[in-house]
């Protein structure tokens, strides 16, 4: 038996293949090395040119050479041929080179299948709405290539595109069912280890001059919160991040308490309104959960640190939704552990002598007066709030307080805490976010990296830890109106924060609200939500058998509906036809069956001959039906009469 010659590749299918390949491989250019992207682009262009000129494909040895070069390049770049990035690079390389040796339909099918697979890999890098939309388009193109490969190549582009879109539309119900019911895995399926180490913007575990003013230049969203009841005053919106109580003269860090010491549980005495809210925290690879200062009720994943920030068990590697309750009027740790107070007074030796001198002149005053004195210094002297402070030397606090007097929140917080400690008042730096902007579209308070802030806390006997924000003394508008109002024009703020045009601002709000819904409802559909949905649907605590069964049932149902929908129209009999067929079936039971090809009036005439007792009724039914189906205007009235004829048939004689 001789093997059949393979199907030749249809000329008209090549543009579909190449466009599909380009759409699928193209977005990977964002994270692939430039040389590979150039190789891919030139290969596809070359193939398109060969197609246009109807030239023969290059010889096999040249392709083998290209593959060898590409694979060697990937191995050199990624030090491996496997793993996420190298694997994707290999697939992209094959996707670009395969069209070069595609002479038969079989090869083309390989490209399409490879394309479908390559589509999935985009989700390693992005799961945003634009990615999803783009992949839909790419999938339509690949499906169009599939259609054009099977004899559709000569059809106009729009016809093929419509067909492909229709096919995908039919797949939509299945996608929906599988999405809802397929067992979910915690975290993203492709949560490969290196993803977790990827650099993400956010507060870091230490603070030095410039670290926050650097962060502020990002317009990225840190988290969104929606308050169940009223939203607190803007001046009360302090979102607590890491607490720094150790200073080395340049950098503030979180002191690691000696493990042997007992760590007292924090004691919070809250009064006033309890604000309940739900936050959607972007991944930042740290443990703190940025609750409103101070949290009184925590999500199950969180715990309150001795320094009152909420900490998760694991660094936050995926976007997470959590519910908190916070109070803004509170007393925290009226009785504090001596070790913590001792740490809150520690200063590096021998630096900033002028500051120490100033502080020692206040030492006789009570603690509250000391703080007030420092704040009034900030307020009265010529201090400036700016994102571009001059560089500071070894005695940073001295230089800042007495020479430059220009700084950002971290300068003020740092100098204030230094002053307090030097004057004998326990103090520490708190980093976090301050403020936020309510998105009128969905009512979420959006907090960006540009809202990052640092303030300070002092411990007063009988009052506990009290927040003091020296920035508020220098630039009150920073706290009351936000960063944009506080900084003069020309400061390097991200443009997304400084949007003046109303329509642009609205556009941004809408886009962010849409993203938020997408993140919550599509990407945030986790095992817990799946359980909630299933129990709402009456399947509480389903095991895998009932999940599989419901999957199968729903898929079959969808298949049935689609099949019914796509059946030829004439199968779906109109009511007149149904009534007439019922009538004829009734007559057939009474011994006069209508031949399949017999028209209504001819049938009525035959009935009149064979069963004169049914003649009049049949003639009426046939007349109504003929008029309904073949007449110029059938009316409801006629249909009713026809249906009555069926009912008026005399009972069957035994």
């Amino acid at each position, binding site marked *: 038996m001789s093997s059949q010659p393979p199907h030749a590749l249809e000329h008209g299918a090549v543009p579909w293949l190449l466009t599909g390949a380009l759409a699928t491989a193209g977005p990977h250019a964002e994270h692939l090395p430039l040389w590979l992207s150039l190789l891919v682009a030139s290969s596809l262009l070359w193939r398109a040119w060969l197609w246009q000129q109807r030239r023969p494909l290059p010889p096999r040895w040249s392709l083998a050479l290209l593959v060898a070069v590409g694979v060697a390049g990937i191995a050199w770049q990624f030090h491996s041929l496997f793993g996420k990035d190298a694997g994707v690079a290999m697939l992209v390389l094959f996707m670009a080179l395969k069209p070069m040796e595609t002479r038969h339909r079989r090869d083309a099918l390989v490209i399409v299948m490879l394309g479908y697979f390559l589509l999935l890999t985009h989700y390693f890098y992005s799961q945003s709405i634009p990615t999803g939309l783009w992949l839909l388009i790419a999938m339509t193109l690949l499906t169009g290539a599939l259609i054009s490969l099977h004899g559709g190549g000569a059809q106009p582009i729009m016809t093929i595109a419509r067909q492909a879109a229709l096919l995908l539309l039919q797949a939509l119900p299945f996608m929906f069912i599988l999405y809802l019911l397929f067992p979910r895995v915690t975290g993203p399926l492709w949560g490969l280890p290196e993803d977790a180490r990827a650099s993400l913007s956010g507060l870091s575990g230490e603070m030095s001059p410039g670290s926050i003013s650097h962060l502020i230049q990002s317009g990225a969203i840190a988290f969104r919160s929606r308050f169940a009841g009223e939203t607190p005053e803007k001046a009360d919106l302090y979102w607590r991040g890491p607490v720094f109580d150790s200073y080395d003269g340049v950098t503030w860090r979180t002191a690691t308490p000696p493990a042997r010491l007992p760590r007292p549980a924090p004691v919070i005495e809250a009064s006033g309104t309890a604000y309940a809210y739900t936050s959607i925290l972007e991944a930042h690879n740290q443990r703190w959960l940025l609750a409103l200062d101070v949290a009184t009720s925590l999500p199950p994943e969180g715990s309150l640190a001795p320094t009152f920030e909420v900490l998760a068990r694991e660094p936050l590697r995926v976007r997470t939704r959590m519910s908190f309750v916070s109070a803004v009027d509170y007393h925290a740790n009226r009785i504090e552990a001596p070790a913590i107070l001792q740490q809150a007074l520690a200063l590096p030796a021998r630096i900033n002598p002028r500051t120490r001198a100033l502080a020692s002149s206040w030492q006789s005053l009570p603690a509250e007066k000391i703080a007030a004195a420092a704040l009034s210094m900030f307020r009265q002297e010529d201090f400036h709030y700016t994102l571009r402070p001059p560089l500071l030397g070894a005695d940073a606090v001295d230089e800042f307080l007495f020479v430059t007097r220009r700084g950002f929140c971290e300068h003020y917080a740092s100098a204030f805490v230094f002053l307090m400690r030097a004057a004998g008042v326990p103090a520490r730096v708190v980093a976090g976010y301050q403020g936020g902007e309510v998105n009128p579209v969905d009512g979420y308070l959006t907090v960006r990296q540009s809202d990052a802030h640092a303030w300070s806390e002092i411990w007063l006997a009988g009052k506990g830890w009290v927040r003091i924000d020296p920035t508020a003394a220098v630039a009150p508008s920073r706290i009351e109106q936000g960063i944009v109002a506080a900084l003069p024009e020309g400061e390097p703020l991200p443009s997304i924060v400084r949007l003046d045009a109303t329509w642009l601002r609205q556009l941004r709000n809408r886009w962010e609200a849409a993203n938020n819904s997408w993140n919550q409802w599509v990407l945030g559909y986790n095992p817990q939500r799946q359980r909630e949905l299933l129990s709402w649907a009456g399947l509480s605590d389903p095991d895998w058998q009932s999940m599989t069964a419901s999957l199968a049932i729903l898929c079959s149902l969808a298949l049935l509906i689609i099949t019914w929908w796509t059946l030829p129209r*004439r199968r779906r*009999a109109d009511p007149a036809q149904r009534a007439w067929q019922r009538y004829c079936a009734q007559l057939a039971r009474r011994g006069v069956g209508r031949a*399949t090809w017999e*028209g*209504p009036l001819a049938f009525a005439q035959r009935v009149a001959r064979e069963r004169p007792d049914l003649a*009049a009724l049949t003639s009426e039914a046939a007349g109504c039906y003929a008029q309904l*189906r*073949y*007449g*110029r205007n059938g009316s409801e009235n006629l249909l009713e009469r026809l249906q009555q004829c069926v009912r008026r048939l005399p009972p069957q004689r035994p």
Partner: protein
Amino acid sequence: MPPMLPMTRPSPVTRILAAANAVILGKSSQTRLALCCLLAKGHLLIEDLPGVGKTTLAHTLARVLGFQFSRIQFTSDMLPADIIGVSIFDRESGNFQFLPGPVFSQVLLADEINRATPKTQSALLEAMEEGQVTTEGETRPLPEPFFVIATQNPSTQIGTFPLPESQLDRFLLRIELGYPDHDAERALLESGGRRKQLPTLASCLDPGEFAAMQQEVAAVYSSPALLDYLQALVEATRQDARLVHGLSPRAALSLLAAARAWAFSDGRQMVLPEDVQAVLPAVARHRLRLVSGSYAGSEDIAALIRSLPLP
């Protein structure tokens, strides 16, 4: 019980058929088909043995409808000029003068058309198609309306030139008369032939009434469902392996026109599948040739109809 359908009693049609059936006995369905053919503005081909009343039918229809009638007996030595007419030199005026031939009449009975040579046949068929005659560079219109009723002996008979398919296609309907039944033949024998009645037969139509009827026929409604059925029939002939080829689009148009006329003759304003089925043999049999070489028989047409279910 009131009538179900808007029955506009077509008194003209009834009158014509009654008058014609009084002359041609026992052939009411053929008479009706013949009338429908004229109502649908088509030419009629009657095929049967000599002496079964073909000429009488044609002549009767012409008289009943009040049309001017002429007849040509086709023979094998006939020339086109014998049909169209000739120009004769008039010695007095010194000009050629055209003497119109028998084709210049409203109803032309072309008797035994298959006895003439193909050349003469085609001269007539061209006149049928175009409604005008061109001789010696001058085009002369034929009268309005212009119908050809041709009769043909079964082509198996000796001395005939069978009409080619392309020319058969120009006849809207082809009917067969067949022998009369027992009673009709007895009545015929008793009365001593019907032809002598013809001269006394008066038209039962007012002038212009026939044209109005033709307009009404063209306006008979054919619903999408009916067109579906008609197309299915036509497509079935094209897919039937026993047939050399199926019905042409022109044949489909003819089928619809004839079915309209049939519905009209039944007093209806809409076409039903029954109408299509009734005229299908007359429309299709001379257009469909079996692989075996003969034309489709009435059994083949009936099988075709039975193969297509009606909802």
